């Protein structure tokens, strides 16, 4: 991990606050995250866990009322993104780090043809328009759009939802980025299309030698696609580890309850489904001890006094829970 070439993205001690009329929302607290070369890292968590704030921090797309703590660092291929000038940032966004958004309907401009939207991305390249269009057509072919050269003239509404997401993936990979961030890329799609898109992304990342940060609340997709998993809850990373280790030997009570809630994991048919009682804490007024303690069925004395640090289960698996320290 110290070898710079093994790591594409390294987030250390990232804390982000939002200043609002109601008070300071402590959206992210001490987040550590590493994306190694050619690996797919999944971020899983429910609404409000800070997944979007995390990826927006990596691209420095946070709203104006956000305050990033001084101690935080986000290092992409040896360069500190948080200290970058706007010009350097423009060089990274869309070129070295690109993104696939949730909704392919709104990610594309409805009044500009696909061909123009794709060649626009290549504005920096010293290349003739004909070559740019050839490159765009080639990318469309690679993501499985039939008859790509002719379809460059078409507009987004002339494509189905699945095809639009394929186009977004083609656009994201056009500049051969080192890191692809995918924010719930299949939520708007049907399950058969979802499976197709996931397989496509996996194949393309391997082919282009690109790492991926895959954000989802769907545990099935995370298990299917990712090499490593980061579980977030209320602005903290509560557990992270290698995918098999995490799914088979989850340690944090929240991770275990989240896995138990997934109806796809419940073998026996049952009418009464498990839930996680209580609700996510108010991020303006945080509980004193462990962030999950108010909802945790396994809490004991130390949990309500102080917040747990991150403890190692093994070399590839870390958990923020006192039970692991005391085990």
């Amino acid at each position: 991990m110290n070898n710079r070439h093994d790591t594409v993205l390294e987030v250390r001690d990232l804390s982000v606050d939002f200043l609002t009329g109601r008070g300071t929302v402590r959206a992210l607290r001490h987040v550590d995250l590493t994306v190694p070369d050619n690996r797919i890292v999944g971020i899983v968590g429910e609404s409000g866990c800070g997944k979007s704030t995390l990826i927006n921090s990596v691209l420095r797309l946070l709203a104006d009322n956000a305050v990033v703590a001084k101690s935080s660092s986000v290092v992409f291929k040896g360069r500190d993104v948080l200290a970058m000038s706007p010009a350097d940032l423009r060089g990274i966004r869309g070129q070295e780090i690109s993104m696939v958004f949730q909704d392919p309907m709104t990610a594309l401009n409805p009044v500009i043809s696909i061909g123009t939207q794709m060649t626009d991305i290549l504005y920096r390249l010293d290349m003739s328009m004909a070559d740019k269009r050839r490159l765009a057509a080639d990318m469309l072919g690679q993501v499985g759009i039939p008859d790509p050269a002719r379809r460059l003239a078409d507009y987004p509404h002339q494509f189905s939802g699945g095809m639009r997401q394929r186009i977004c993936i083609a656009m994201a990979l056009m500049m051969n980025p080192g890191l692809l961030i995918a924010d719930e890329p299949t939520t708007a799609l049907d399950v058969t299309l979802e499976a197709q898109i996931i397989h496509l992304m996996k194949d393309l990342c391997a082919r282009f030698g690109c790492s991926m940060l895959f954000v989802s609340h769907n545990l099935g997709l995370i298990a299917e696609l990712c090499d490593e998993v980061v579980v977030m809850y209320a602005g903290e990373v509560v557990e992270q580890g290698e995918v098999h280790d995490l799914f088979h030997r989850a340690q944090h009570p929240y991770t275990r309850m989240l896995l138990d809630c997934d109806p796809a994991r419940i073998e026996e048919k049952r009418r009464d489904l498990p839930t996680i009682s209580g609700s996510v804490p108010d991020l303006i007024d945080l509980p004193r001890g462990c962030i999950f303690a108010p909802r945790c069925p396994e809490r004991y004395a130390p949990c309500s006094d102080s917040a747990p640090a991150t403890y190692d289960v093994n070399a590839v698996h870390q958990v923020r829970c006192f039970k692991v320290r005391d085990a």
Partner: protein
Amino acid sequence: MPELLNVEGLRVRFRTAGVVKSLIQRLTDPHIDAVMQVSFTLNEGETFGLVGESGSGKTTLGRAVIGLVEMAEGSITFNGTELRGLDDARLRVIRRHVAMMFQDPVASLSPRKTVRNIITEPFHIHRIPGRQSGRDARKLLNLVGLHEGFLGAYPHQLSGGQARRVGVARALALEPRLIIADEPTAGLDVSVQGEILNLMNRLQRELGLSYLIITHNLPVVRHVSDRLAIMYLGRFVETGDTDGIFASPAHPYTLGLLAAVPEPDPDKRRDKLELEGEIPSLMNRPRGCEFHTRCPFAREKCRSEAPVLRTVAPGRMASCHFPFPNPAEAGTSGSGG
């Protein structure tokens, strides 16, 4: 169990072009069939699941049952009364007994009304006097497990799960016998999803409700529905008992749908996909079996001859020339190929 709803040979058509456009484009028939030849029965206290991808006609079918879209052919009988040709006044009386929970928990609530007004609005619409009181609103909120402090709240102040509960409360206002729930868990977190489904289950037991659940979420429908219909291009391609269908699907499309759901276990990754391609357009239905363009098992007969929905095992119907055999009768070798 007595029969509550019976749908026979239902067809719903939408006009895709007006007179002028049809003349210009030389369309011989400017209609699409959103729902075709659909028949099913829902018994009292039962949950029937309608499953399909976008554009399969499941929402249109649900809306036709409550009379929100007109039927072109067929009949719908609710509690012994034929709905076809019923005038508005009599349809309104029937509609008291059928409630709808719409997709998207927050967007289906009027943003400028308070929770109190939202859940008592059915009383105004159906001109039921004396029921707009705060007491009825509080009773409804209680029933769905919400604190009465929410009475004055607006939809934007609610979380997804709370908004869904308000949707359930509104559906319950007129004490219906049937609730049509369109994607009741879409957009909710997994931990909240369970809460809503448990609430619906409890209400079913306490109030003797029947549910028609419209969803694309197979893991959810497996736990909540007694019987199931799988829709493709507006038709039922397979119907039967939920456990049976999940254990051994008869139609290749059902098999493909089940296989497309990723298992939350990294040891069970799939190396191949069962279903390639996308749903064809309703304007341009494939000849023969309408699924043959995506079916990995399609043979010559499938390309020329359309299968009919027929009984393939006790209590199970499928529209496929070569359905998978029932493991109870044959081996698990599968068919097709």
